[in-house]
């Protein structure tokens, strides 16, 4: 393999006009040359850009999830399960983009001891997976309940009498500060739970992958994923609910009503008939919790949920109603998926050359299938349900800041760090308590305007794939499976780059689902655009999520900017037998609606024909 060279993290480009950007993010995220030891450490590590989670620069508030998983993922590796050779994943930020690096255990002599601990601890989780997992679901529902019930109080002119007569002894000012702390705390806690199973889930999956690749050097990653993927996983539930509602509207004869106008008109019109009311009842039941599904990945505050904009699910449902009216099936081909999954597993098993390997295969596959549903399901609980509620609670906090003129718009709050918000709230409540004016209005609106400009410049900048030194081996399971950092992928980065810089008629990404097709491009930047899709077009999107599901009924292939072999678009396309190319980095900007392209989902190559 050609020598891979990446810039030193301390020589990374500084964008003119953004000087001082560092204060937008936690101080320990900066690369620094001030201390020789820290400088040496940073230079010697391999920092790669986490484009998988962050296709755009970080908002100062949204970095909360990065901090949350910085802690949670790392601690489960290093201090809880004691992954033998791997410590945590360190984080840095440059020009608003997150760079991460896995840390190996420094002293190899500790590894055998760590392995012993890991066998005991991880072994307990693997053995009691289902029981612990049920427990996990309860815990998650518990904190989601706490979150929904959390009140963000507005500051009253005068406290209610009950404060006095019930002898409460605290003010709303205190309660507001406390509620904000509680809100942040629930978010951090939720991310603790997020990783309770994920590290072990990925580990089991990684080494099943490893076994398959040793036995079958040509096996595509997508095929292995197909063998372990769950059939009945809740991340598909929101879409299933939508299909049920579409069917119900046809059965009840209210599909015409469902097909008309905007969501408020549809819902009002449904009230007008008995059958309409029946449908509404089912609709309201489905909203909790399934409509908390995000229209994006859930990682950014701007990823709205269906509940935030009912036009999104109702418009998507129209696609299903049209299909039902045309006499087509809208059901997921679960029987076929099951059959395919079994055929693959049996087929590969038969081709193994020894009885011993067949036993190992059964073992590893069984383990991977036990853990994999978690890998898929946690997304709904954390990134969708919890996050969607969380962003809205934050908007309530923001409304108070706006009311006190600390910010001009509710959506400005995302330009503040969580610690700055806490400071600002102190400013608000002490001013409220004293009857004076807070300093905030003189500070924050100006700072936010400046930060918006900086973010704009960050957006126009292209972050390098990686910085620092490439290591010999990587032992950290997430780095291998989630970010796909292997020698192959790094070669692919180089290839993507060469193609992006050279041949203008080609776009290259990762093979997501096999098959070759030729067709017309439709670029959909958000899920709201999927209504424009024509039958048989090729969907080109930044990324897709479960709320994009109806789009897959119409298209003949999908291309995304972000994502790996386990991303939503790849999984769904494999289910429906459609080709998919994911993680192209630039498809939505290089391909235009109406272009004719030819793509090969097995190689990841796209050719622009006209």
């Amino acid at each position, binding site marked *: 393999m050609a020598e891979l060279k990446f810039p030193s993290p301390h020589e990374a480009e500084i964008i003119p006009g953004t000087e001082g950007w560092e204060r937008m993010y936690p101080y320990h995220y900066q690369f620094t040359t001030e201390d020789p030891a820290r400088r040496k450490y940073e230079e010697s590590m391999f920092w790669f850009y986490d484009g998988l989670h962050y296709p755009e620069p970080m908002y100062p508030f949204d970095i909360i999830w990065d901090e949350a998983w910085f802690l949670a993922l790392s601690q489960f590796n290093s201090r809880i399960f004691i992954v033998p050779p791997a410590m945590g994943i360190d984080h840095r930020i440059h020009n608003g983009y997150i760079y991460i690096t896995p840390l190996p255990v420094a002293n190899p002599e500790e590894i055998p001891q760590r392995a012993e601990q890991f066998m005991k601890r991880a072994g307990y989780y693997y053995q009691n997976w289902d029981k612990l997992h049920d427990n996990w679901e309860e815990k998650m529902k518990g904190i989601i309940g706490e979150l929904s019930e959390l009140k963000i109080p507005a500051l009253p002119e005068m406290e209610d009498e009950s404060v006095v007569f019930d002898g409460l002894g605290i003010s709303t000012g205190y309660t507001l500060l406390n509620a904000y702390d509680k809100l942040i705390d629930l978010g951090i806690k939720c991310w603790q739970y997020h990783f309770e199973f994920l590290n072990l889930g990925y580990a089991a999956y990684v080494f099943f992958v490893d076994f398959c690749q040793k036995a079958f*050097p*040509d096996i595509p990653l997508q095929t292995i994923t197909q063998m372990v993927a769950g059939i009945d996983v809740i991340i598909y539930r929101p879409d299933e609910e939508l299909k049920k509602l579409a069917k119900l509207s046809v059965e009840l004869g209210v599909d015409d009503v469902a097909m008309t106008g905007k969501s408020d008109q549809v819902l009002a019109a449904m009230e007008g008939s008995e059958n309409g009311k029946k449908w509404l009842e089912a609709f309201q039941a489905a909203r909790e919790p399934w409509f908390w599904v995000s229209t994006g990945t859930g990682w950014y505050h701007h990823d709205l949920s269906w509940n935030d904009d009912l036009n999104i699910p109702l418009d998507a449902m129209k696609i299903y109603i049209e299909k039902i009216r045309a006499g087509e099936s809208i059901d997921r081909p679960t029987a076929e998926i099951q059959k395919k999954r079994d055929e693959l597993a049996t087929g590969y098993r038969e081709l193994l050359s020894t009885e011993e390997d067949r036993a190992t295969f059964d073992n590893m596959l069984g383990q991977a299938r036990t853990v994999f549903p978690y890998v898929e399901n946690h997304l709904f609980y954390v990134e969708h349900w919890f996050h969607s509620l969380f962003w809205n609670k934050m908007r309530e906090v923001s409304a108070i800041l706006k009311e006190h003129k600390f910010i001009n718009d509710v959506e400005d709050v995302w330009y503040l760090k969580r610690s700055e918000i806490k400071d600002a709230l102190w400013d608000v409540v002490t001013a409220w308590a004293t009857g004076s004016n807070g300093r905030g209005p003189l500070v924050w609106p100006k700072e936010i305007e400046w930060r918006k400009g900086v973010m704009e410049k960050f957006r126009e900048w292209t972050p390098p794939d990686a910085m620092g030194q490439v290591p010999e081996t990587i*032992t950290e399971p997430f780095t291998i499976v989630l970010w796909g950092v292997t020698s192959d992928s790094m070669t692919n980065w180089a290839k993507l780059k060469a193609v992006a810089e050279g041949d203008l008629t080609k776009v290259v990404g990762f093979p997501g689902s096999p098959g070759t097709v030729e067709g017309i491009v439709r670029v959909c930047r958000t899920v709201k655009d999927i209504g424009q899709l024509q039958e048989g077009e090729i969907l080109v999107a930044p990324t897709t999520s479960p709320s994009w599901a109806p789009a897959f009924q119409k298209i003949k292939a999908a291309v995304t900017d972000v994502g790996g072999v386990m991303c939503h678009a790849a999984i769904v396309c494999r289910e429906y037998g459609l080709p998919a190319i994911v993680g192209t980095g630039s498809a939505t900007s290089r391909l235009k609606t109406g272009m004719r392209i030819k793509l090969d989902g097995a190689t990841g190559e796209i050719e622009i024909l006209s």
Partner: protein
Amino acid sequence: MNISKYVIPFEQCDLSMVDRVGGKCASLGELMRANVPVPPGFAVTTDAYVRFLEDNGLKDKILKRLEGLQDGMVEEINRASEQIRGWIEAGSIAEFLEDFFCEYYRILSKRTRTPACPVAVRSSATAEDLPGASFAGQQDTYLWTRGAEDLLDRVKKCWSSLFTPRAIAYRANMGFPHAQVLISVAVQKMVRSFTAGVMFTINPATGDRATVVIDSNWGYGESVVSGEVTPDQFHVNKITLEITNRTISDKAIYYTTDPETDEVKQLETEDERRNQQTLLDAEIVDLAKLAKGIEKHYGKPMDIEWATEKTLPYKGEIFIVQSRPETVWSRKEARPVAEPGKSALEYIVAGLIQGKKVR
């Protein structure tokens, strides 16, 4: 039709008959039994050869002539070869044998709806095509033989090819007694290949047993087998039958038949076809299916020669021309990929400790 002593159609041959019909015919029969489309034909058995030698009083005469010859005696071997081959080619085939051959040839022509069906006449030695002792290519092949007279002539030539200087020297060197090596002759309908090539039921580059690798060029398979062109290459997943990789090469030359002379000749590929995919996707998948079936029948990775015959741009008719066990990977000892007897957790720990190489 009863199994005749002297002539046996391929469909009645199987691997238990190697000593009578030779390795090539036996394996063609085996393929037919596995429902693999093989160009039809028949075997002229070793009994026919023995009978011919007896009728012409050649058996002892030949053995006597070969006495004392050793590997390295180039001149002596050359002279003996020339003399023995002369005896055989000048010998006469008994009338009843001639009738047998001609009758089967007539049936073949009728079956393939081709008057004076062009056939390939090839030797099918009893020690050929066996793993570990490959005589492949040591005997002659006569392509595009047409008409009974030519057929009889080429059969004798095949018989005599058992005594080429190379074959004599080889046997002397390997210690095979000349008297024990008999020869059968395969008479097989010629395929007018539109495309042809080879395929492996294992990826020869990686040893992946789930991959069928197909090499293909226009015309006869010769250009692929000899390595004169870089063929198109297709990888097909055996389980899903998906084409997982395709490399379309620049194919400078190909072999085809001159319609005037029925002779095979090398041509330069027309510009518009040089960089075109030589097989339709549907043909690629059909070939992979056949490869799977053949491997299953033999129970081991196979190396297969194939051809397609067609006149329309639609899917052609596929024929398997030859098939033998793959030699490189199948010789490797089957060792478990993972240390056996480990629990999934132990495997995970071992894997974690090892890590993934990135450089």
